[in-house]
């Protein structure tokens, strides 16, 4: 057995129970019949594929093949009533490569093996309605020299690509699973494999026109509002490398005719700084729209579509934050949402997916000039006040747990550090020294921190709140990494329910803390104006945000 592995951050693939629950609640949609053909067993994958179809509003009947009957299926005619999706492994082209048959002592020549693979390839090509996915599984060392096996592996992948197969990552393969149950996929990868199947089966790709990208931790590593121009990284080295590659890729897409736009939860003058400071490999003028505000990103994208006079189904949205992706996906299902990878190794697949969205065989002069043409239509695009999607259901599925730490005594390093480095979600921008905190605590005050975990992993200690002895919150900050998860609402509801006095917040507007102003506006009759004490009615706050508190498993 292998011990638990750390969960991947970012958008986690669907798990067994998530797939089961989704299907339990699914009350039917457009019917579709699917044949998921593979030489191994597809028993484990079937439920995941139905769930991935259900996410797209499709009630799929999924047929899988009996074990080891894939070759016979290929030799017979398609039924004509079901959509064919074939999940191919190297041994579907060259049976001698199948781990389950052992390693043959005598082998045909590499040339003969390739000829045999071409026969299978011709059979696949003769099924034009079929969609192919190819799992780049490792192959056994058949040949006297290991380089020959490697060359054959690469050649087979090329052969699959020549059939327009989509590639599945090699780490989706499990030799253990394949040997014990006949399923070539790791259980952890079933959700993402099913997504690839459903995407191939049900998403008829129409070429997209606009790529809308987030900035922080997408265009560069880091947050521009918190880290400043010198603190973000997007050069060809270290943690900025993947962002550098992304920027160069965007520029290439632009030259090929794609339109680029930015949506970012930032102040506009802050968001553009890395571009104007010459820190980026892509120029600000490469974008036809640049929207930086604290409104819902779905609203920002709608505004862009309206200004550019383009349909929302021509948009692709890239963001690293699963909450933002879910919000856009929920509010505008026709926008293709693509998560920015949180690790370098996922970049090839990510870029390949984007390239597929904007695929074209010929690049014309008009394509090259498209950005300039659209820029002439309107220099700036600003977001409207449209509300975003209700994310309650999505947030529940995140399995969030909030741990509240009383930092009144003991180590308070992180809590104080947060107060002194956070700009956006910051009550008043006030920085505090250790002696300031001591003075508040010695006067009967309290200092709280909060850590957030969800099924993608730990976000660490992300919130800090200092309350003085009179019940006035003098510092309240939260990391922008966890915006939109309702953490601040839940924390305030918790605080309002504590047996300490809570009278108000020492509010002051700064150049950067609009997110906090928006938060205040949620529970005040009028938006905050004058700096000073913003009164809090604990009972009212507790009731208003009780549902937010329910989103979390709370530990205090």
């Amino acid at each position, binding site marked *: 057995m292998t011990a638990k*592995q750390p969960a991947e951050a970012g958008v986690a693939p669907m798990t067994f*129970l998530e797939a089961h629950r989704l299907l339990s609640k699914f009350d039917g949609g457009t019917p579709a019949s699917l044949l998921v053909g593979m030489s191994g067993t597809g028993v484990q994958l079937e439920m995941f594929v139905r769930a991935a179809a259900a996410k797209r509003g499709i009630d799929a009947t999924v047929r899988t093949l009996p074990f080891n009957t894939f070759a016979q299926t290929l030799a017979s005619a398609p039924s004509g009533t079901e959509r064919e999706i074939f999940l191919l492994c190297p041994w579907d082209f060259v049976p001698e490569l199948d781990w389950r048959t052992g390693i043959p002592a005598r082998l045909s020549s590499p040339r003969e093996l390739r000829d045999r693979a071409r026969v299978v390839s011709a059979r696949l090509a003769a099924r034009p309605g079929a969609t192919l996915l190819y799992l780049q599984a490792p192959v056994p060392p058949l040949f006297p020299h290991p380089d020959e096996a490697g060359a054959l592996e690469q050649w087979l992948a090329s052969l699959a690509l020549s059939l327009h197969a989509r590639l599945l990552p090699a780490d989706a393969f499990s030799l253990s699973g394949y040997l014990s149950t006949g399923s070539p996929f790791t259980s952890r990868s079933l959700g993402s494999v099913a997504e690839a199947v459903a995407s191939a089966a049900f998403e008829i790709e129409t070429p997209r026109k606009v790529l809308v990208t987030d900035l922080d931790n997408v265009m560069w590593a880091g947050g521009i509002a918190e880290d400043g121009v010198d603190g973000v990284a997007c050069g060809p080295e270290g943690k900025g490398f993947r962002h550098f590659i992304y920027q160069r890729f965007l520029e290439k897409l632009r030259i090929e005719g794609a339109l680029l736009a930015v949506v970012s939860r930032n102040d506009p003058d802050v968001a553009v700084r890395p571009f104007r400071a010459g820190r980026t490999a892509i120029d600000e003028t490469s974008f036809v729209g640049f929207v930086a505000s604290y409104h819902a990103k779905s609203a920002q994208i709608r505004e862009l579509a309206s200004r550019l006079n383009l349909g929302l189904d021509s948009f692709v949205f890239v963001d690293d934050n699963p909450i933002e992706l879910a919000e856009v996906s929920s509010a505008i299902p026709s926008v293709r949402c693509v998560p920015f990878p949180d690790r370098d190794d996922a970049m090839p697949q990510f870029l390949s997916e984007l390239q597929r969205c904007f695929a074209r065989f010929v690049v014309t002069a008009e394509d090259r000039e498209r950005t300039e043409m659209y820029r002439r239509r309107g220099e700036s695009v600003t977001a409207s006040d449209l509300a975003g999607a209700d994310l309650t259901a999505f947030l529940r599925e995140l399995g969030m747990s909030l741990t509240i730490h009383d930092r009144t005594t003991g180590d308070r390093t992180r809590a104080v550090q947060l107060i002194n480095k956070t700009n956006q979600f910051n009550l008043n921008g006030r920085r505090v020294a250790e002696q300031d905190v001591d003075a508040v605590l010695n006067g009967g005050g309290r200092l709280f921190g909060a850590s957030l975990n969800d099924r993608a992993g730990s976000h660490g200690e992300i919130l800090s709140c200092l309350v003085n002895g009179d019940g006035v919150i003098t510092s309240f900050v939260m990391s922008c990494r966890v915006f939109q998860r309702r953490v601040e609402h839940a924390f305030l509801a918790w605080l309002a329910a504590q047996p300490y006095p809570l009278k108000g917040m020492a509010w002051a507007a700064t150049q950067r803390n609009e997110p906090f102003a928006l938060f205040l506006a949620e529970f005040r009759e009028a938006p905050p104006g004058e700096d000073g004490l913003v009164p809090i009615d604990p009972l009212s706050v507790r009731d208003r945000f009780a549902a937010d508190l329910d989103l979390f498993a709370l530990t205090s």
Partner: protein
Amino acid sequence: MTEGTTNRLEEIFRAALGFGPEIAVTGLTQQNEPNWDSVAHVLIVSGIESEFGVSIDLADSLRISSFEAAVKALADLGVE
């Protein structure tokens, strides 16, 4: 093992065996449950792997012949 983990494990068993939420699975064994065939077994094991992010090899998966054995397997994997 936490209550949440036990509940998830019960849900996996119910899903794999085609049971509704009213059926108790904590005393279940492969011998006394006709629905627990080879396909259900594969679903139980892959469900556990998928849900808890663990990997179970063939020899260990064969030892999961009851709900209690699954609880022990998870505990051995360090799942709390």
